[in-house]
């Protein structure tokens, strides 16, 4: 059975820092069947048209995580992205290196920032020396314990999530989705004895810079769903030590805020996050906005059925532990 081919136009990012003055896009056109992976196309370009094209790859089977790159602006594995749907949607395939990591050559990036964040979260079990793991047999886990990992053990460290992340792009203080998903994996591991310490360390170190934009979850080829595990970490961190950062104070303050009227009270929320003294810094912008939108100073209307909301809070939001 043969499948008909279509002309596929690749616009490939080419750049050698130190040699080229600026990046350029080179057009290559190949006849390919629609199900051909982008990686196969790129390897044909390298093998048959232009041996100078630089790219990373290995397994070609979405296992090794080497061939992550931007394909029509989406961070994806080139080995599992087919040319057909990309051509149908865009009429061409723009291939660029991953974002948020400096380009070394063409599609090859320097992954130092990505791995540095990974090592910072100490991605290894911290055991209790008084209770060593048995050397002669595996350590069993219950199905409930295994379930808590969610899909995080599937991560292949391809960095597609890191490439897709707008927080990592804008702020080097953000550890990135993969490192945080990995932190989650250790923070729920029943063999690990440093859960509390891990949460204490991450709360002031970038956890609350996650934008919950879910671009990492879209990019992840293994459905690790980093954005959802980061959400879990946030709730775990507040439960473990209370709200200690602006981010957790804002989330916690928002939750408390609804207790009055069932709708948000904007002024009260700003005060809960920044404190009375911190509000001073917000005054200039506040006045600017208030002149156009005076409602920011107004108390919201109290919803009908507020007593229902009160009872939902009473049932599902017991009083927190004391802060540190």
């Amino acid at each position, binding site marked *: 059975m043969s499948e008909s081919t279509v002309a596929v136009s690749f616009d490939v990012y080419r750049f050698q820092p130190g040699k080229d003055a600026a990046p350029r896009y080179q057009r290559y056109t190949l006849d390919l069947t629609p199900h051909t992976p982008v990686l196969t196309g790129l390897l044909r370009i390298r093998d048959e048209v232009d041996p100078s094209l630089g790219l990373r790859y290995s397994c070609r089977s979405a296992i090794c995580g080497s061939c992550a790159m931007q394909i029509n602006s989406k961070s994806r594995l080139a080995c599992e992205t087919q040319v057909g749907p990309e051509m149908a949607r865009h009429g061409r395939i723009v291939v660029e290196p991953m974002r948020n990591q400096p380009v070394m050559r063409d599609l090859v990036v320097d992954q130092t920032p990505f791995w540095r964040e990974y090592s910072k979260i100490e991605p290894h079990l911290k055991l209790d020396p008084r209770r060593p793991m048995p050397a002669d047999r595996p350590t069993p886990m219950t199905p409930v314990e295994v379930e808590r990992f969610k899909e995080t053990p599937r991560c292949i460290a391809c960095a597609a999530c890191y490439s897709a992340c707008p927080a990592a792009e804008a702020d080097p203080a953000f550890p990135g989705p993969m490192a945080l998903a990995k932190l989650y994996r250790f923070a729920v591991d029943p063999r690990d004895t440093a859960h509390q310490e891990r949460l204490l360390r991450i709360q002031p170190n970038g956890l609350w810079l996650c934008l919950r934009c879910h671009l990492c979850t*879209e990019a992840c080829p293994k459905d690790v769903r980093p954005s*959802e595990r980061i959400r879990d970490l946030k709730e775990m961190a*507040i439960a473990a030590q209370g709200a200690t950062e602006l981010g957790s104070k804002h989330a916690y303050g928002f939750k408390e805020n*609804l207790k009055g009227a069932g709708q*948000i009270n904007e002024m009260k929320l700003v005060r809960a996050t920044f404190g009375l003294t911190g509000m001073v810094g917000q005054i200039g912008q506040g006045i600017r906005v208030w002149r156009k939108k005076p409602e*920011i100073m107004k108390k919201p209307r109290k*919803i009908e059925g507020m007593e229902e909301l009160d009872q939902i809070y009473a*049932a599902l939001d017991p009083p927190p532990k004391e802060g540190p």
Partner: protein
Amino acid sequence: MKIAYYPGCLAQESAKELDMATRYVCRTLGIELVEFPNFSCCGSGFIDEANEALNIAINARNLAIAEKAGLDMLTICSTCQGMLNLAKVRMQDPKVRARVDGALKPLGIEYKGTVQVKHLLKVITEDIGLPAVKAKVRRPLHGMKVGAFYGCHLLRPADELQSESGEEPHSFEDLLAAVGATPVDYRGRVMCCGFPILFVKPSTANAIAGRQILDAKAHGADAMATPCPLCHTSLDAYQNKASKAVDSPLDMPVFHLPQVIALAFGATPQEIGLSRHLVRTDGAIAKVSASPTA
């Protein structure tokens, strides 16, 4: 059509202009808005971070209100849409369901999960349809180049929310074209506006907003338009800060989605509250070439 109107907090408070424009558009298209004074805030993604079960329960209560009335829900905010929809998804998990029902049932609240939650963008493009929209256009927005800015929670996670696409949607651009505007294609259209960390690290949040505005500008946009009042806050009310953060002068008018449609339907700037914006919109409106064709 008749639908339960879930305006969300902001459209009742600092983004009243969004409510004004929504009512104008719905009136014109024959969408009857049924109001429920007992709807609460959706938690805006923040309560979800502090207490997931509580967040689901709050929204299950909102969903149950519309269900009881036998109506689907209309949202006008990407975040409300995402939170209400996500509560529906989470309630499919039997353990979550049991826990939340444990809080709701004693109050006589029964959540069934039958209600559909639809953003105005979807109601207009799918239920009403673009031909019916075109039929109501009195002043086509020819000559105005508009960058659609979707807002994350309308799109993602695409699998759970069953959105049109996580990164490559087109319904908003289709709608803009239907009212005569020229949609602008730019990467930032599906990116984050920075709002979730506006009170966590303002400098980073403002820089993220600034990047998207600069991207729209670089691709020739006269204005941006968003289906989310949180994005609007970040892009319009804080545009002066965004400008400083990206060290570049910005003067980008930002419309709420129904404002653009209402303009094409013949609304005056007063009727849709354009004077309430921080960045003036008259420059973009002046780009509209044709005179009214009533």
